[in-house]
């Protein structure tokens, strides 16, 4: 346990040294139109991702957490351009992902890969895993024929499978093995950035730690950068370097793992952390129980979207949307408690409110 911990520490120090973000996400929005009637008139939008900005630095694991439906998976898919963004930009090593076309897009695709949540639907049931890996090697002109075959065996072995497994179909593997295949496929292109979209939540608990360890080993070996999407805060505590908390399509807090787990800033983060089970039954924890449900992202509440459930909600929270701003310690939070709004903004917001 101590050895990975030091590796983590080394990496964390390396992270702080380089200021150039591998991935810079600015004001990203993804709205899904709600269509009704025969004519498919657009009657509203589901704001799955609503004005999200963050940066991911080389070699780190940026963990995106939040409850289901908060838009974390959508964020992951939008920034790989698997879904078209409504607004905003994503830059990968300075290159605009949404503007790239043709050959440049293909080169970007090679750099950025994804590991899906459900290994049962992430593999084409009609292709042997070897054929699936060979196909993408050929598309990117990395290897062909016999060479591609050997390369496929190589990545499978690296991910803890047998070289003979190249000839097998996905249904011949167990869930954990399939996830290893999915990781091997992502790894075959030698990417530098991987979106891990809840890579372990569909797996058996006994298998989860194996996959997490595999992801960590690969990160050390190939210097990978991860966007790790999860709802499991205890896993994030293990693998993450920095944590971003999403609520209803918005990022409400970003911070280093240690500070975040020690003292979360946003009331939502505090509630989330208080819900993490502790293995020692003698430790009495104060649970913060949130009242009510997550509001619909099609019709988010005005002001801070968390205010209907927030135990500390103030009047200003109902009128003014808090912005994600840095604190003195370099952490980010979107909360009026952390960044008290100035009087002018409050007045303006309440005037606007009276106008309605």
């Amino acid at each position, binding site marked *: 346990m101590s050895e990975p911990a030091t590796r983590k520490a080394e990496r964390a120090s390396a992270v702080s040294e380089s200021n150039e973000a591998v991935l810079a996400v600015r004001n990203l929005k993804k709205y899904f139109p709600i269509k009704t009637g025969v004519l498919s008139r657009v009657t509203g939008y589901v704001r799955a991702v609503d004005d999200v900005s963050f940066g991911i630095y080389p070699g780190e694991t940026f963990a995106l957490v939040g409850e289901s439906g908060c838009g974390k998976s959508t964020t992951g898919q939008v920034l790989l351009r*698997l879904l078209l963004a409504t607004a905003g930009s994503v830059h990968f090593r300075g290159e605009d992902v949404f503007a790239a076309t043709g050959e440049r897009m293909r080169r970007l695709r090679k750099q950025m*890969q*994804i590991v899906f*949540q*459900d290994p049962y639907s*992430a593999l*084409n049931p009609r292709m*042997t895993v070897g054929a699936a890996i060979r196909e993408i090697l050929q*598309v990117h002109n990395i290897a062909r024929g016999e060479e591609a075959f050997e390369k496929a065996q190589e990545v499978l072995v690296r991910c803890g499978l047998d070289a003979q497994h190249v000839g097998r179909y996905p*249904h011949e593997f167990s869930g954990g093995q399939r996830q290893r295949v999915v990781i091997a496929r992502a790894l075959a292109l030698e990417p530098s950035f991987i979106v891990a979209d809840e890579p372990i939540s569909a797996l058996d608990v006994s298998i989860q730690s194996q996959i997490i360890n595999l992801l960590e080993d690969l990160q050390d070996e190939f210097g990978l950068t991860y966007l790790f999407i999860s709802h499991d805060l205890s896993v994030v505590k293990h693998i993450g370097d920095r944590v971003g908390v999403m609520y209803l399509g918005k990022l409400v807090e970003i911070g280093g793992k240690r500070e975040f787990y020690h003292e979360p800033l946003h009331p939502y983060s505090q509630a989330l952390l208080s819900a993490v089970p502790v293995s020692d039954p003698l430790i009495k924890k104060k649970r913060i129980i949130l009242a009510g449900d997550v509001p619909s992202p099609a019709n988010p509440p005005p002001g801070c979207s968390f205010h209907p459930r927030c135990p500390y909600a103030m009047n200003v929270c109902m009128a003014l949307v808090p912005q994600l701003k840095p604190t003195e310690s370099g952490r980010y939070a979107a909360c009026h408690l952390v960044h008290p709004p100035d009087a002018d903004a409050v007045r303006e917001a309440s005037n606007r409110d009276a106008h309605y």
Partner: protein
Amino acid sequence: MDTVERMNNHYAGAGRGWPALKYAQLRHWFGNSEWSQVARHLLRNRGAVIGLVIIGTFVMASVFAPYLATHNPLETSLTTRLMSPGSEHWLGSDELGRDLYSRMLYGGRISLNIGIISVLIGVAIGVPIGAISGYYGGKLDIITQRFIDIMIAFPGILLAIVVVAVLGVGVQNVMIATGIASVPVYARLVRGSVLSVKEQSYVKAARAAGISDAAIIFRHVLPNCLAPIIVQSTFQIATAILWAAGLSFLGLGAQAPMPEWGRILSQGRGFMRTAAHLTTFPGMAILLMVLGFNLLGDGLRDALDPKSRGR
């Protein structure tokens, strides 16, 4: 115990011996590629083997019709009209004294041709339309599907009549007509399957890997839509044969002396009370052929599904 040995024991279990082909033997014959696994599984399926035997028999009978026929199928003889089945005319003779057995051998050729070729036409046009419409979606999909709606609004046989009316009568035009009439069926079916398959993570993964749309459609999407296409095709062959018979009945398909099953059936209709064999045998032939294709289709559907195939 290794896999082959285990599979042998599994398949050689008591009472499951027919057809008594051992896994290892089949593996030896077919190798171990995807299609050989399909073939192996198909030959383990009793229903599929029966279907194959039925279809095989009809195909053989059609191919070797000139050698198997006892009479010239077009030769009339007024002295032997409406004879019951017997040693001279094995399946009896029709109202013009023509030998029913020989006519049915040649008729099988026409019916099989119509069934298979019209389905090929339908698949060749309908599958790409459905795949493109479903994969790209959006306006293209809406426009395409409204055209398909218009085609579906006509009963298939009516659509076929329209096409024959435009192209003229004859067996060839009947094939084209029934093929075109089955296009909307395939376009709709494939679109539906593509819509569900394209949401699978492996399609997203393929896109994330930078694979082109064409390659995704042909290598990832369509192979996973195969099962419904194959099952539909078996029904469609049967439907095409029936449509062709209907068109022939209306005088739009096979012309007078040509021995087509549907035509024989409709001609024999007038003599149902006095010479039932004229309707019974062609009817049974159509029934058997349809049954054969359906059994084969069912077997193929199972064999093509890697999950039910197991190993």
